[in-house]
């Protein structure tokens, strides 16, 4: 564990210095946690004036009795999925970069030639992706809650967040998703020889999140606690499979003989 933390401490400093990683994340966070919720809450009336939207929302949120509150609850469900973008995006940016950079700079071999265990090295790299991802997800969760509750209370005299679904997304689904994306990114980056192709391939991994966002906005389904918990269960079952594959790929001999290095 100590060695894994050493890897994490060194790499997190490099991540924090790398604007190409944290600037897009910062931009996405501010947009989806502050700007969009703020704008939507202020302009809620324009949504409720559309009769089709109004009847659709009213059918789903039958018990609210207030169309604007129902509309707000519908919009909150959309933002809940956007919250999953961070735990998906950040590992797909960090994990491939950290491994491909080691390959490019020929530091992998001297590193695995030390007494560090391969599992410690893999854990260190995983923590470098997961801890910032979870931290930023948590910050976004708090920011959205504050923005929506402050503006929402001014309008409706009630607090709309947090809900059970948001807790499930923030504390269960996002760490599981972040772990899976990290493992997949490590597997992808083992085959890549440069950062651009590694990050490009890593970005493709988050397409399913976009698909879920699109499906929910399009009205194909609406995520609730049951679906979210089911999703957590399915992804939790996937975790050991991707972990096993990542460990097999992240093997000293594989790294030296099969990973293409400069």
């Amino acid at each position, binding site marked *: 564990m100590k060695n894994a933390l*050493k890897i994490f401490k060194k790499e997190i400093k490099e991540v924090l210095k790398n604007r190409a990683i944290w600037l897009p994340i910062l931009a996405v966070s501010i947009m989806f946690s502050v700007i969009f919720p703020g704008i939507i809450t202020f302009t809620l009336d324009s949504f409720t004036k559309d009769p089709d939207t109004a009847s659709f929302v009213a059918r789903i949120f039958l018990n609210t009795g207030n169309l604007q509150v129902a509309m707000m609850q519908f919009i909150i469900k959309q933002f809940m999925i956007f919250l999953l973008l961070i735990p998906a995006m950040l590992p797909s940016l960090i994990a491939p970069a950290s491994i491909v950079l080691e390959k490019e*700079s*020929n*530091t*992998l071999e*001297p590193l695995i030639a030390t*007494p560090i265990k391969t599992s410690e090295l893999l854990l260190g790299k995983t923590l470098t992706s997961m801890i910032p991802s979870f931290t930023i997800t948590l910050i976004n969760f708090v920011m959205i809650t504050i923005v929506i509750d402050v503006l929402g209370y001014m309008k409706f005299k009630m607090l709309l967040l947090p809900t059970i679904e948001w807790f499930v997304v923030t504390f269960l689904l996002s760490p599981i998703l972040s772990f899976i994306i990290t493992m997949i990114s490590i597997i992808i980056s083992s085959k890549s020889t440069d950062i651009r192709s590694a990050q490009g391939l890593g970005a493709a991994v988050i397409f399913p999140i976009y698909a879920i966002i699109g499906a929910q906005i399009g009205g194909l389904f609406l995520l609730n606690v049951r679906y979210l918990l089911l999703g957590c269960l399915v992804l939790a079952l996937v975790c050991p499979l991707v972990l096993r594959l990542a460990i097999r790929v992240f093997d*000293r*001999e594989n790294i030296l003989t099969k990973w293409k290095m400069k």
Partner: protein
Amino acid sequence: MIQVENLSKKFGNILAVDNVSFEIKDGSIFGFLGPNGAGKTTTIRMLSTLIKPTSGNVIIDGRELSKNGEYIRSILGILTETPGMYEKISAIENLKFFSGFYGLQEKKRKQNIEKYLKLFDLWDRRDDLVSIYSKGMKQKLAIARTLIHEPKILYLDEPTAALDPESAFMVRNFIENQKNEKTTVFLCTHNLEEASNLSDVVCIIKNRIIKISTLDDLQRSKKGKKIEIVFNQPAVRYAGILRDFTEIIDLEVKEDKINFSMENPEKINPVIIKKLVDSGAEIVYFNEIKASLEEIYLDLIRS
């Protein structure tokens, strides 16, 4: 001691290392030579537990390689052929990071970092990012990294590559001094002069071991010995006399010198000298020139 028995490594259908066996005594310098693709790096990687042998046994410091990977890596210092450093952090941070995996006491770690940075004239530049270091400075830093935990065994792959003559001299001296420290050195180099000056034993490999011996024994075993005769007159006058000897091969005439090779010169030399003197030759020197490691190496590799 390092004991290697019947070590082989196959990558798919390619036999990179074929049934290699040798022993390296504690505190000795073992020169490991071979052309590109001969299996040198593969052998080092197997001995460093970085890749698994296909077959064979290795015992290092009394412990079996296959079961004691972590321990063996803790007593090794490995300088790879292209040793990379983390360029976005400083030299001293690089050394702190890598040395952190060896369980050294903090005080000892700091002392060693200072010691080796000063030894390689990098102390004043310790806080500079490695990205601004020259190639030679990076190589010296990599060597410092290899030594920081005072390993019992050093695997050095081309240690003086990219170094200026002064730094290369310093590193060679340092390697030689390792004998006094009882550190075992496994030296891979294409610099045959370096190998011949430093190594106690030389091993020539081309996927399998071609020859393993001390330099003296290699020179003695070389077929045909080289003789040089220095005259007080133009040597060309006496070339004809020497050509009459069928035992003489590779005759070369240069101004006042004649070089040639032959087997068993001890038997023929007295006859040659007498014949030359009888024909009026004034012989200044009559020397045996020991075969260089380069000649021996090229003979062995080509055969």
